[in-house]
């Protein structure tokens, strides 16, 4: 028999011999690691849930060229921006997104002016596919535009008696373009007053290929606090300003942070309690087995041999309880997620290492003191008369 198999064998025998205490230790470790697993799983599933809800509120970050933000006015009144409108290069923004690691859906916007029926009206060049993804609440009466077509805001179209399907002559500067209005969009916001044109077409008309005046971004909230993501992106965009958009999702994100902190505190308290209970039980065991330890030393077992035997016991308990805690934690998380916020918390395999890690750490941390006394134990003292 190899030494390793023999070690496993006698450790197993010792654990079975004290099955009451072994079960108690297993139970404590399993509960502690299952709690950590469950709270972790619930927290991850909550985060996913909040991220999903945040999506419904659209972009949470907006990127604008620096000088475009010098606005005149106060409170809700805006009198327009001073100076020349400024622009951002699409490439620069895309590169910044890639390098900063900030992920999420985005849409490019180019603001301009065109003339319809002799009146100047605001228009916006967008990529309609991007807009549809980022603003799912836009209701389009008619069709989304194909190349060469435009989309009218509902207020604007009403004011100028424009209907879907109509053909109009739009004038950009000197050039006049005939385009069909494919549909009317109702968003309930500023957009209802604008006319939407395919981004490349407007860029060409304005003589600003590859340039935009605003980028809206729905940064994935699961990637960390929005403030940090904005700051991170800002570092890669020196000529622009990255601002957070106030949105309803923020509140739930803050709430989530607080709930997570609470769960972390509860877990910490439980882990400390479990650790001391493990330490207590282990100490008693070592005390009871002092004769056995003394005997092993008398037989020629070195301090390291003894340490190996006893830490192998802690290790075995830790791993066993970790696997148990993983499964139990998965069940608890499922139950909590379903009953508290009607979501599903799937058992994620990566949490197996969390569960085993927590229980192993507890088992070993709780054994440090007892193991030290095993290390120090004097064989003569422990073997002295009954």
């Amino acid at each position: 028999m190899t030494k390793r198999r023999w070690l496993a064998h006698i450790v197993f025998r010792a654990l079975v011999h004290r099955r009451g205490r072994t079960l108690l230790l297993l139970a404590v470790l399993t509960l502690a690691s299952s709690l950590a697993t469950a709270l972790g799983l619930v927290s991850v599933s909550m985060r996913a849930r909040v991220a999903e809800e945040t999506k419904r509120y659209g972009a949470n970050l907006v990127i604008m060229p620096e000088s475009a933000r010098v606005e005149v006015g106060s409170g809700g009144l805006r009198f327009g921006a001073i100076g020349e409108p400024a622009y951002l290069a699409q490439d620069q923004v895309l590169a910044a997104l890639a390098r900063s690691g900030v992920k999420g859906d985005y849409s490019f916007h180019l603001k301009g002016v065109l003339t319809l029926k002799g009146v100047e009206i605001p228009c916006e060049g967008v990529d309609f596919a991007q807009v549809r993804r980022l603003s799912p609440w836009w209701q389009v009466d008619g069709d989304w535009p194909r190349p060469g077509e435009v989309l009218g805001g509902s207020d604007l179209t009403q004011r100028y008696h424009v209907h879907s399907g109509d053909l109009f002559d739009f004038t950009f500067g000197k050039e006049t373009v005939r385009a069909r209005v494919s549909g009317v969009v109702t968003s309930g916001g500023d957009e209802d007053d604008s006319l939407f044109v395919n981004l490349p077409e407007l860029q060409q008309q304005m003589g600003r290929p590859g340039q935009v005046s605003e980028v809206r971004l729905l940064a994935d909230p699961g990637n960390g606090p929005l403030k940090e993501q904005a700051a991170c992106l800002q570092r890669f965009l020196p000529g622009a300003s990255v601002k957070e958009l106030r949105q309803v999702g923020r509140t739930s994100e803050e709430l989530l942070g607080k709930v997570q902190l609470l769960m972390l505190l509860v877990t910490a308290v439980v882990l400390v309690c479990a650790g001391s209970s493990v330490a207590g039980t282990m100490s008693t065991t070592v005390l009871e087995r002092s004769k056995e330890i003394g005997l092993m030393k008398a037989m020629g077992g070195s301090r390291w041999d003894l340490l190996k035997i006893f830490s192998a016991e802690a290790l075995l308990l830790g791993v066993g309880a970790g696997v148990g805690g993983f499964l139990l934690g998965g069940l608890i998380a499922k139950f909590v997620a379903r009953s508290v916020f009607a979501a599903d918390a799937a058992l994620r395999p990566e949490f197996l290492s969390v569960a085993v890690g927590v229980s192993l750490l507890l088992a070993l941390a709780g054994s440090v003191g007892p193991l030290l006394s095993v290390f120090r134990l004097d064989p003569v003292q422990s073997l002295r008369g009954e």
Partner: protein
Amino acid sequence: MAAIIETSGLTRSYGDICALKPLDLCVPEGEWLTVMGHSGSGKSTLLNLLGGLDRPSGGSIHVRGTDLATLSEDGLARFRRDCVGIIFQQHHLIPYLTALENVMMSQYFHSVPDEAEARHALERVGLGHRLKNRPGELSGGEQQRVCIARAIINSPRLLLGDEPTGNLDHKSTTMVMELLRELRDEERFSIVMVTHNQEVAAWGDRTIHMDDGCLVREERTKSC
């Protein structure tokens, strides 16, 4: 004949209590030495020093030429597993292991557990039929024989016994002593055995008497 044990001025004290007064002792290779004396006279203290379980307060102690005082903690553990076999009065078997496994435990610390060899050792002490029994299922005499099998499994040069027959009846005592003599005749190891029993002392080659930590008397056993 070369000496397996040589002590000079060996002492051991616990605070003010001097458990072992300066002792010069020489045990030739292969000798069976018996140590007798009243309770508290320092017999166990001496035996623990010889077995490398304890460290002297003064003097020197050489076993097979090794100065035990110079050995580190781990060096002493190595000395114990390579050179010494110990039998106690209380059998000190590991309760959750079978007789066979208790013997194999000693092999584990020494080298690697070898079941066939361990079984053979138990057969030699007449326990071939109790291999799978736990200590709790064995009689006192049987337990002591398991201890003997465990003590000799790694072929030690020195066998120490601290009142090994103290808990045994007359019949078991005789059996154990016969066994020890047989094994010694085969393996040629030395024995130092503590006992209160005059009859047990008669099995040895030489007897030393201790009192209050001092060697007071020494006698050769007639049979040798």
